[in-house]
C-alpha cells in the first residue's frame, strides 16, 4: 500500500459514483489486509495517531457509529462523537456552523450521518477536512455498499478480483433506500448483474437510467441469483399507500422459508440491518445457512478502517 495509491482516492467519500473500478478494488483489498489485524491479538495500528475523527450523527444509528468508532480507534485516531439528532433542518445551529466549528477544533475527518440527501456534499463544501458519508437521507451509504461487496466477494469471488458475472438481487424499498443506491453503483461497477425486486410504488421514476433489471416477482428471481440483499421496509410506508398492508408486503416480497429454498446452495442472504423480522425477512432466513448478516457487521469495521486509512493515511495536517 504505497502513498501513490493513497493519492488515487478522491478527497471525500460522498458517493460510490466518486470511485472508479480500481479505487473500489483498492478499498476492498485494503480491507482484507486490515481484517488480518482484527484477527491478531493486538488489534491496533498506529497509522492515524494524533488525528481527530468526528462522528457527526444527526440520526440515531448506533451500529454505524460504533462501527466507525471501532475502525478509527483500531487505527489509533482520536474519536469525538457529536450527536446532533433532531437539530437537522430546524433553525438554530446550522450544518454549516457545525462544520466550521469542527474545522476550528481541528477535525481531520468528519463522518456524517444525516436525514437529508446531499448533506455530506454540502458539508464537503464547508470544511477543509475529509468528509465520509455515513448515510445521507435517501441518497447513499457508500461504506455499507463497500462492506456488502466485501462480504459477497469473500464468499463468491476471489481476493483481488471483482464480481464479474455474479448476479445479485436487491429486494424491497429501493425508492427510499440509500443502501440500494450505493449498492447498485458499486455492484455494477464491480461487474455484477443487479436485479431490483420491489412493488412498482417503491421503485423510483427514472430508474430506466440505472444499469439494472427490474422484477416484481421475487420467486422468479431467487433461483437465478448468487446473493439476495433484503432492504428494511418501514411500516409507515403503508400510511402513504406504497403498499396496502405489511401482511401483503410480506406475502409478495418477504423472504421466508419457502423462498429461501428457491436459492442456489451457495447463494447468500444479506441485510443491512436493523431487520424487521417477520416483515421483509423471516427468522429462519435471517439466522439460516445462507445468511451472512453477522459477517456484514464484522466486515463493516474492516472496510471502514480501509476507507479511513486510505483517505487520511497519506494526508498529514489536513484541516489543521
Amino acid at each position, binding site marked *: 500500500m504505497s502513498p501513490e495509491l493513497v493519492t488515487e482516492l478522491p478527497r471525500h467519500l460522498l458517493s460510490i459514483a466518486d470511485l472508479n473500478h480500481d479505487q473500489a478494488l483498492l478499498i476492498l483489498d485494503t480491507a482484507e489486509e486490515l481484517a488480518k489485524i482484527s484477527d491478531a491479538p493486538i488489534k491496533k495500528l498506529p497509522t492515524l495517531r494524533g488525528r481527530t475523527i468526528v462522528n457527526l450523527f444527526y440520526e440515531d444509528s448506533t451500529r454505524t457509529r460504533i462501527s466507525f468508532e471501532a475502525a478509527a480507534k483500531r487505527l489509533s485516531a482520536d474519536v469525538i462523537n457529536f450527536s446532533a439528532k433532531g437539530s437537522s433542518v430546524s433553525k438554530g445551529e446550522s450544518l454549516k456552523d457545525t462544520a466550521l466549528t469542527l474545522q476550528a477544533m481541528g477535525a481531520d475527518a468528519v463522518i456524517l450521518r444525516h436525514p437529508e*440527501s*446531499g448533506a455530506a456534499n454540502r458539508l464537503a463544501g464547508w470544511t477543509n477536512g475529509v468528509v465520509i458519508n455515513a448515510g445521507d437521507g435517501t441518497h447513499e451509504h457508500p461504506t455499507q455498499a463497500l462492506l456488502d461487496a466485501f462480504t459477497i466477494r469473500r464468499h463468491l469471488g476471489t481476493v483481488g478480483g471483482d464480481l464479474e458475472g455474479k448476479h445479485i438481487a436487491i429486494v424491497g424499498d429501493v425508492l427510499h433506500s440509500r443502501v440500494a443506491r450505493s449498492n447498485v453503483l458499486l455492484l455494477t461497477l464491480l461487474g455484477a448483474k443487479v436485479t431490483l425486486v420491489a412493488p412498482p410504488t417503491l421503485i423510483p421514476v427514472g430508474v430506466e*437510467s*440505472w444499469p439494472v433489471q427490474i422484477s416484481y416477482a421475487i420467486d422468479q428471481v431467487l433461483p437465478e441469483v448468487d446473493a439476495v440483499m433484503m432492504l428494511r421496509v418501514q411500516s409507515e410506508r403503508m400510511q402513504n399507500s406504497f403498499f396496502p398492508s405489511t401482511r401483503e408486503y410480506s406475502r409478495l416480497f418477504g423472504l421466508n422459508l419457502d423462498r429461501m429454498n428457491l436459492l442456489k446452495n451457495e447463494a447468500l442472504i444479506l441485510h443491512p440491518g436493523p431487520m424487521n423480522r417477520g416483515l421483509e425477512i423471516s427468522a429462519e432466513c435471517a439466522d439460516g445457512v445462507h445468511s451472512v448478516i453477522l459477517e456484514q457487521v464484522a466486515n463493516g469495521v474492516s472496510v471502514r478502517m480501509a476507507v479511513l486509512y486510505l483517505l487520511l493515511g497519506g494526508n498529514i495536517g489536513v484541516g489543521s
Partner: protein
Amino acid sequence: MSTYLIKDVELVNGEKVAIGIADGVIAEISSKPTGSYDKVLDGSGCVALPGLVDLHTHLREPGREDAETVLTGTRAAARGGYTAVFAMANTDPVADTAGVVEQVVRLGREAGWCEVFAVGAVTKDLAGESMAELGAMAHSAAQVRVFSDDGKCVSDSQMMRRALEYVRQFDGVVAQHAQDPKLTVNAQMNEGSVSARLGLRGWPAVAEEGIIARDVLLASHVKSRLHICHVSTAGSVDIIRWAKSRGIDVTAEVTPHHLLLSDELVESYDPKFKVNPPLRSNEDIAALRMGLADGTIDIVATDHAPHPAEDKECEWAGAANGMIGLETALSVVQKTMVDTGLLNWSQVAGRMSITPAIIGRAKGQGVALAVGAPANICIYDPNQSQVVVAAEQISKSKNTPFVGMDLPGQVRHVFFQGKPTMISTQMVAR
C-alpha cells in the same frame, strides 16, 4: 425635467435612429433629430426596447424586508431594464385586502425606480378556502387586475371556477401557480433520472400538467381569462398549445431560469438551484424555447424570488425555493432565444414588454416606441458580455443561479416615465 437624446441606437426593426425624450414622452424618433436636448447619450451598438414589464416579481414587502423591499426590488428591476413589475401577493400579511395592495403600490411610487402593480391574492391568506375581496382590490387605488395565490396552487376546482368567473366583471385574470399539492408533498426536485439518483423526492411534471389541463377546461367552460405562471414542462406547452388551438383564452409565462438551466445542476445539492416549479430536463427546456418562439408561451416573467443567504446555506431539503432574476432576465433571453435564432428583438419586445402589459392591463406600460408614447425605454447592448457575480447583484438578496456564468448583453440606459433610472450602465442616484 431634463431632456435627453439617445443617439445612434437601433430600433427593433434594425433602423438606426436617435430618440428624443422630453416631458415624460418620446418627443421624436428620427435619423436626423431636430430638437435640442439637455443631454446626449450614446446608443451605438444598442437596440431600443420598450421598458420591460415583469408579470411575476416577489418584492417581499411587507413581511420579509430582510430578503427584499419594494425599494431594493424595483431598483434591481430598473437595472434589468424593467419599467414595471407586478408584485406577487404572498407577502406577510398577504396582499388579500385593498389596504395591502394600496400600500405596495404606494411604496413603489415613492421609490420611483419603476411602476409597481400589485397582484391580489385569490383566496384569503392564500389558504385556498374562501375567496379574498377581489372586487375591493380591483376597485381600490391599486386597480388590481391580476389575481394569484402564487406560491400555492388554487387546487380546489370549485374555487378556481368561481375565481375565474368572478374576476370577469372587472376584466381581471387569474394567474395560476399550477401544482397539484397531493402529488408534490415535500417535493424537492424534478422527478426523473436525476432525482432517482440523488434520492431527492420528485416533483412530477404531471402535477403541473394536470392542473393546467383542468384549468384551461374550466376557463373554456366559464369563458374567462386564465394565465399560467412559470410553465416548466414540455407537456404543459402541449396542453396550452391545444387550448389555444381551441380558442380558449389562456396566456402563459416562462421564467429565464427554466429556459436555461436543467435539473442536472441539482447534482451539486447546492440550493441556489432550488426553485418551484423545479428545474426540469433538457427536453423540457427545448420545448419551452419552442413554445416561447411559436407564441404558445406568451411572455417571459422572472419569478424573481429573493432569499437571504441563511435560507440557502443549508441542506437542500431545508432550503427555500426561489431565485432572483430581474437583473439577468434579458441576458438569459438573449442567450437562449436571440443568439439561438429563435426570436428577433421585435419579438423579445413583445414577450418581455408589450404582451405582459396587455395581460396585466398595465396602462402606459408595454407601449411600442413611438412619438408621443410614454418614455419607458430600455437601451440594451447585445454585444457586451459579463460573468455574473452574486455580490454585484443589487437586489437585497444574492441568490442568483447564474453566478459564474458568462451571459451576453448589458442594459445601458433605462428611462422610466421620461426620467433616467440608469445611464451608461450606472444606476442614477436619487
